[in-house]
């Protein structure tokens, strides 16, 4: 397995298709997610033509799960350190799903010179009350682990991969600083996002609970194309992967090759 030490942690990193002109970094969603959702759906198709880097965010998948350090800034710094460790100095394309979209946006705000473009699939970004809402949902998830219906489901689905995912989620929610760190994420408004001038593609499901974020991105980012998938909700990466992949490949092919950084 590929391990990369960055920002004081050991990250699980996969690199595919090394010959492309563009480098695409894939960032996954929160808690129950990991790099495999991109690997199973889109990343290999992109890797046919471009260099692809997938990694498990801190605390997720096979990466290390420290007890603290789950602010958005921590994840932004992780990405910067990973790019440095992999000696990627050319501006990259960031593809973020859900929470991975938030990290991608935050990284681009802080290091605009390192980002050639953004692919935002069902991207969250913090608005007033966002941290409280996400933290509350996760807390409820943590409490639910002991509820009879969940216990019954777990007994019916007593397979190794389910057991491991539940155990990891339980540890993550109950025994790290994740919830308190998320609760304190400050909200973004138009003035925070209108400075992101790189090309962006945003893809959302028509019935997504964060569809408004997509509409705001399209209206606030000066160079953002929005695609809305009909009859779809938040989990479009897994449920509607063909369409997500088609939009992403078509958009990426039209983007110019980034100039080498230095």
């Amino acid at each position, binding site marked *: 397995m590929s391990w990369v030490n960055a920002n004081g942690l050991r990250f699980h990193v996969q690199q595919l298709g090394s010959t492309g002109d563009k480098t695409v970094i894939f960032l996954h969603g929160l808690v129950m997610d990991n790099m*495999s959702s991109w690997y199973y759906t889109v990343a290999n198709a992109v890797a*046919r033509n471009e260099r692809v880097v997938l990694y498990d965010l801190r605390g997720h998948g096979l990466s290390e799960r420290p007890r603290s350090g789950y602010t958005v800034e921590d994840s932004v710094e992780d990405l910067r350190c990973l790019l440095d460790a992999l000696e990627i100095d050319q501006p990259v394309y960031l593809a973020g799903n859900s929470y991975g979209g938030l990290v991608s946006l935050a990284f681009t705000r802080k290091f605009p010179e390192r980002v050639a473009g953004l692919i935002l699939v069902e991207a969250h970004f913090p608005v007033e009350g966002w941290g409280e809402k996400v933290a509350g949902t996760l807390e409820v998830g943590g409490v639910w682990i002991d509820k009879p219906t969940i216990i019954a489901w777990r007994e019916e689905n007593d*397979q190794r991969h389910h057991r491991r995912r539940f155990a990891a989620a339980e540890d993550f929610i109950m025994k790290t600083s994740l919830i308190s760190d998320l609760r304190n994420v400050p909200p973004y408004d138009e003035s925070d996002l209108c400075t992101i001038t790189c090309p962006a593609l945003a893809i959302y499901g028509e019935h997504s609970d964060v569809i408004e974020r997509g509409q705001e991105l399209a209206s606030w980012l000066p160079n953002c194309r929005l695609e809305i998938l009909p009859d779809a909700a938040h989990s479009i990466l897994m449920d509607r992967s063909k369409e997500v992949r088609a939009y992403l490949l078509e958009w990426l092919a039209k983007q110019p090759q980034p100039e080498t950084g230095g």
Partner: protein
Amino acid sequence: MSVGVSIPEAETSADRIQSVLETVRTVLMDVIGEDYLTDVEITLDTTFESDVEIESVEFVALAEGLQERYPEVDFVTWVADMEVHELMNLRVGQLVEFIARCLG
């Protein structure tokens, strides 16, 4: 000047399948741990999701381990051509046969 030189018998397709299956077993042990796998028989008919109960992120690590063992095999194109449900329902035999075909 090969006239008269005896050429070793080429590896048969069945031999190759067995050899790749052994390699898949070994890499799988590395990824998900021997303790668990001692109770699971890994044959060509074994499914990764239902029988091995592999986590999706472990399947990614398995593919990487196999890519290292078989650098000539184009795993990227193979995975790119499959949809999510096909990957989720993959049998060990499909993976082994794909690798063996590439080596043949």
